[in-house]
């Protein structure tokens, strides 16, 4: 659905993404992890067509993303950036309805009401429909922004840290929505910081470090203590969950080590 081919991005001289090749396939949740500054968001933005490439190609359904007309691209992939401010006090319903804009005047605009209502319900913000977006809490805003992306009903979905502002329940909710979308034939690329969430919910995990792709594969293969400890420059433990067997990733929290920190 979405493919990076030897993709590089240079911003004001710094090579932020360095020759990454990665493919988001239909039916999977692909999670992008890596330490701060690894180039996760930059890679996602490049795949969304937001940044000029220094090398390689970003493909959407086989065609370079910048060659799509914006409206056509918007019917194929939806993007949730990290920050989603809204400059005027639009109410929540209007914000989510904006997700239907690419489908205006098409046969699919009959689905507008259902798509919006479903997205509002799935993200648990239906009770906020008449509130002004700027008056919502950070977590509520994040879920409304996600609802807008879901209402767009595109096969491919790119989510940049959708769980950052959310509590545990809503983090799980977001990733289960991602799963549902993948099961129904879509593809979801998610940038996550929480390695536990990544290991538990990803079909495949891609690990970025210093702009390079260092590993990609199923969580069980990629989420190893050695690899993650090296990439994050902090000892990390990985062990199977006693009940489910899903890999659990935890940073080593040595009391003595903590006390050494300034």
């Amino acid at each position: 659905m979405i493919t990076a081919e030897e993709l590089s991005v240079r911003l004001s001289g710094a090579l932020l993404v360095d020759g990454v090749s990665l493919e988001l396939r239909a039916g999977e949740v692909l999670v992008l992890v890596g330490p701060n500054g690894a180039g996760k968001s930059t890679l996602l933005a490049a795949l969304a067509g937001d940044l000029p490439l220094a090398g390689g190609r970003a493909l959407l359904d086989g065609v370079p993303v910048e060659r799509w007309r914006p409206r056509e691209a918007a019917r194929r992939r939806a993007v949730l950036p990290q920050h989603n401010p809204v400059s005027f006090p639009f109410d929540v319903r209007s914000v989510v309805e904006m997700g239907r804009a690419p489908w205006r005047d098409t046969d699919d605009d009959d689905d507008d009401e259902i798509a919006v209502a479903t997205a509002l319900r799935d993200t648990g913000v239906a009770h906020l429909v008449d509130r002004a977006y700027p008056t919502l809490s950070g977590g509520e805003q994040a879920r409304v922004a996600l609802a807008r992306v879901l209402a767009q009903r595109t096969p491919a979905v790119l989510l940049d840290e959708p769980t950052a502002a959310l509590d545990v329940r809503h983090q799980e909710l977001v990733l289960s929505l991602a799963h549902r979308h993948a099961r129904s034939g879509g593809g979801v690329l998610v940038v996550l910081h929480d390695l536990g969430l990544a290991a538990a919910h990803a079909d495949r995990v891609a690990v970025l470090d210093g702009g390079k792709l260092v590993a990609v594969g199923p969580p069980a293969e990629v989420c190893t203590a050695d690899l993650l400890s090296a990439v994050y420059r902090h000892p990390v433990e990985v062990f199977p969950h006693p009940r489910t067997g899903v890999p659990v990733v935890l940073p080593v929290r040595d009391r003595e080590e903590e006390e050494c920190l300034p």
Partner: protein
Amino acid sequence: MTAAAMVGAPVRARGRTKVVALFAVLVTALVVVSVVSAGAGQYGLPVSDVVRAVFGQPLADPFAEGALWAVRFPRVVMSLLVGAVLGVCGALMQGTFGNPLAEPGVVGVSSGAAVGACLSIVFGWTFLGAFTTPGAAFAAGLITTFAVYALSRSSGRTGTVSMILTGVAVNAVAGAFVALLMFIGDQAAREQIVFWQLGSVAGARWAYVWVAAPLVVITAIVALVVARRLDLLALGDRQARHLGVDVERLRLVVICAVAVGVSAAVSYAGIISFVGLVVPHLVRMVVGPGHRVLVPASLLGGAVLLAAADLLARTVVTYADLPIGMVTALIGGPFFFWLLRRNRTKAGGWA
């Protein structure tokens, strides 16, 4: 129907009622202000006479009829046109930049037009006859706006902040040019520049109206066509692009429309501050930020506001025609401040 849709239904209906009420009020105000304004002045005429004249019936007093058609009506129409275009362009600018502080002046239209007008005044240009000063102002307004647009583009895109900052820089340079021209000019020219900058629709003639009207209509049509897409820009450029908006093209179209409309208005009426900034805010306070309502309502609201301001400017002090720009700012400023204070808490601010 889903539960969510049902919860929203009564509120939506209430919203629609508000919209209908707003348009009804605006249209009524427009008619009333226009008629009263046409009748008011040193030579007062009853409303019934104005209405008769509008419907083409002869008046008992031929002098009154002549004054209405030659002086009052073109002035009222001009104030409506200028107000409408300033209001609609304010909504366009705030919408395209996703910034509640934006107004047409931000991209240099007004200051550029001022330079053009000052040039024609100081050097006594007459190549377009009575249209020379408005013509020079119009051309300079357009040129300045496109200069701001071109200067703020980098790698094929214009960032909102870079555009506004470029506008600030260009406005400063234009201000310096105006100062220089005032310095060069003789006393008569200086006086003329000062009054041009204060803004006025005095002395409007049908000839000016016929020149300005088509430009205003073009701007209004473009504004109504793009209105819906402007909503998406409130999410930010990136998000709007992801939702299928060709942000660059939309912005270019809007800036062209604003440049044409505001240059036309400013070139004739001079700098009338405040209308473009305030009218969209007033409308948003009543019916919310959706541009499909905001744009046409700002058009009507601007027209009403400026026609009312002109009425005040002509009648508040007997035998004096106050500068209309001064009236809009003097009365509108404190009023707007009061409204902001009152609404800030419940509207959740303007972010």
